[in-house]
């Protein structure tokens, strides 16, 4: 229809004549793609660790030394007092403190109980958990090697072996520098009951659905979603309310134009813009991040189209019911924040309480994000995204009907 076409032309003219809006449409995606992937990273890469060594034995030195070869730990050296350590931890100079008691080495050799104390700044509890876990692993690993080198069974076997080999009195292990072991071939009877070895379970991780093992792969689809949503919802909401506020909408309301024509005339241009941004996003994703869509591209575009309709409809609905730009902006912003933070883009949905999951049934973004991840990263087929597609379609119908109905040319 001519009317709709001219309305579309008008919106495009207005967008292209608005330098700020244009720069946001163009610059924002780039900025988001550049910044997000590098920032949005929960992985703990740096752990500052310090030590208090009351033992100053070879073993404690060895253990401290073994932290140096780790990628994550940055050793801040030896501290002299607990007070010093407390201060440093308070000022975030160290994340972890490992304290060796005096006579540590002695106790180990005598098989007496002894304790290493690890203190962590637990404000970031994940970081503390990971940090202490790694600490325990490193120390535990060292201890296990130590234990296996010092179990009597080993010793007896070795000595027996030596005795049987050549009757030499050579010391049986290079490990104990300066440690003098009995050179005498005191042979212990092989049937001695030996203390059992502690077990150690290794975990090997395999990563599926992500050839490059990049955090970027997580966040990039999320950026796409945010971009599309922003354009869909935010810009359209502001657009309509602005016309209300400055009064141009009156001039339109007195014409015989029908409501659906008017809304279509606004929705189509922004829908096109949103799809264009999405397309640009996919291209950036491919050529800058090397992520290609594993699944079906038409399917992805189709569902994006539906999602955009939901967001556009929402934007219009909000504008229809707001009195001024400030209000509509607040409402849109509020919804946007809620949607984003609940959707699982930044924080996992798995941890949310039941009622939050229920709210998420009303959150279009959470469904869309699932679709994006499944199609782009996992290459899922239509069946796996059928549920989300249906939900989004229903949402689109409901919200747009609501937008049309709630739009009144004549105020009450």
């Amino acid at each position, binding site marked *: 229809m001519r009317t709709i076409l*001219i309305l579309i032309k008008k919106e495009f003219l207005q967008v292209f004549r608005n330098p700020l809006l244009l720069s946001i449409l163009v610059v924002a995606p780039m900025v988001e793609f550049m910044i997000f992937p590098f920032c949005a990273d929960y992985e703990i890469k740096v752990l500052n660790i310090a030590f208090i060594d009351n033992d100053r034995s070879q073993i404690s030195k060895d253990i401290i030394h073994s932290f140096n070869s780790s990628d994550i730990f940055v050793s801040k050296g030896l501290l002299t007092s607990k007070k010093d350590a407390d201060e440093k931890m308070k000022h975030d100079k160290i994340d972890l403190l490992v304290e060796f008691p005096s006579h540590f080495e002695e106790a180990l050799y005598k098989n007496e109980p002894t304790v290493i104390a690890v203190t962590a700044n637990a404000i970031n509890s994940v970081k503390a958990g990971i940090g202490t876990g790694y600490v325990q692993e490193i120390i535990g690993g060292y201890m296990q090697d130590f234990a296996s080198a010092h179990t009597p069974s080993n010793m007896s076997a070795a000595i027996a072996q030596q005795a049987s080999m050549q009757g030499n009195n050579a010391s049986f292990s290079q490990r104990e520098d300066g440690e003098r072991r009995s050179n005498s071939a005191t042979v212990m009877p092989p049937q001695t009951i030996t203390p059992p070895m502690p077990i150690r379970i290794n975990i090997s991780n395999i990563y599926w659905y992500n050839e490059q093992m990049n955090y970027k792969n997580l966040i990039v689809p999320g950026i796409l979603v945010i971009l599309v949503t922003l354009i869909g919802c935010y810009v359209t909401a502001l657009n309509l309310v602005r016309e209300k506020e400055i009064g*141009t909408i009156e001039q339109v309301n*007195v014409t015989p134009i029908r409501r659906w024509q008017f809304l279509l005339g606004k929705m189509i241009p922004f829908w096109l813009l949103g799809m264009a941004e999405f397309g640009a996003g996919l291209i950036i994703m491919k050529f800058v991040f090397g992520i290609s869509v594993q699944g079906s591209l038409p399917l992805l575009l189709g569902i994006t189209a539906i999602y955009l309709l939901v967001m556009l409809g929402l934007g219009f609905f909000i504008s229809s019911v707001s009195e001024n730009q400030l209000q509509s902006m607040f409402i849109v912003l509020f919804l946007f924040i809620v949607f984003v933070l609940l959707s699982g883009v930044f924080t996992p949905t798995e941890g949310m309480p039941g009622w939050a999951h229920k709210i998420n049934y009303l959150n279009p973004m959470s469904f869309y994000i699932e679709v994006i991840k499944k199609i782009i990263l996992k290459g899922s087929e239509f069946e796996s995204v059928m549920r989300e597609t249906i939900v989004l379609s229903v949402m689109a119908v409901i919200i747009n009907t609501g937008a049309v109905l709630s739009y009144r040319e004549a105020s009450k």
Partner: protein
Amino acid sequence: MNSIEANQLTKKFGDFTAVDHICFEVREGEIFGFLGANGAGKTTAIKMMSGLLLPTSGTATIAGYDILTQSKLIKRNIGYMSQKFSLYGDLTVFENMQLFGTIYKIPRKELKERIMDSLRELEMDAQANTLVDSIPLGWKQKLAFATAILHRPKIVFLDEPTSGVDPIVRREFWKLIYQAASKGVTILVTTHYMDEAEYCNRISIMAEGQIKLIGTPEELKKQMGVDTINDVFVKFVKR
């Protein structure tokens, strides 16, 4: 034949009655002036008649159509110029007219001609491709008027079309109004400039939402025994 008939038209906003049971008629081809101070209810009245506000009670017919049930038909036959000259500042003069012309379903070829003719009459054809934001206020006004009558409506509503411009521009604007009226268009104009009342065929004076006086300027002046409409108003207020 009455272009406009209003019967007990009322608009309330909560407790506040903006328009209080007004009754009047406007004949075809008339220039009817709605006068009154700011806040008297003129804009509210005109908005009800152009379909922008729903009346609380009362009825009206515009061009024979009922405002409550036949608003779409009314809209095809009216033009409107809002107090804020609400045209799109980031579109050009031509684009604005083209937009509204298309919405009013003026055929494409004819539309272009009409726009250019109209602009030539206004001596604005050189500005056809200028953004509306950049043209002076007086010209914006003229443009808004031209846009309002582009589709050759039978009735035109003008809400304070001359506010904010100097007297010379105001007079020029009224020339435009006369031109339109001479072609048979009914014109309902609100204004708070009392001297503009002289330009109208008939006027009404509103105060506190009610029509207090209605008639030709001559009649009212005689009634009040004064020489200008301004004096009519002053005398009336003093009462």
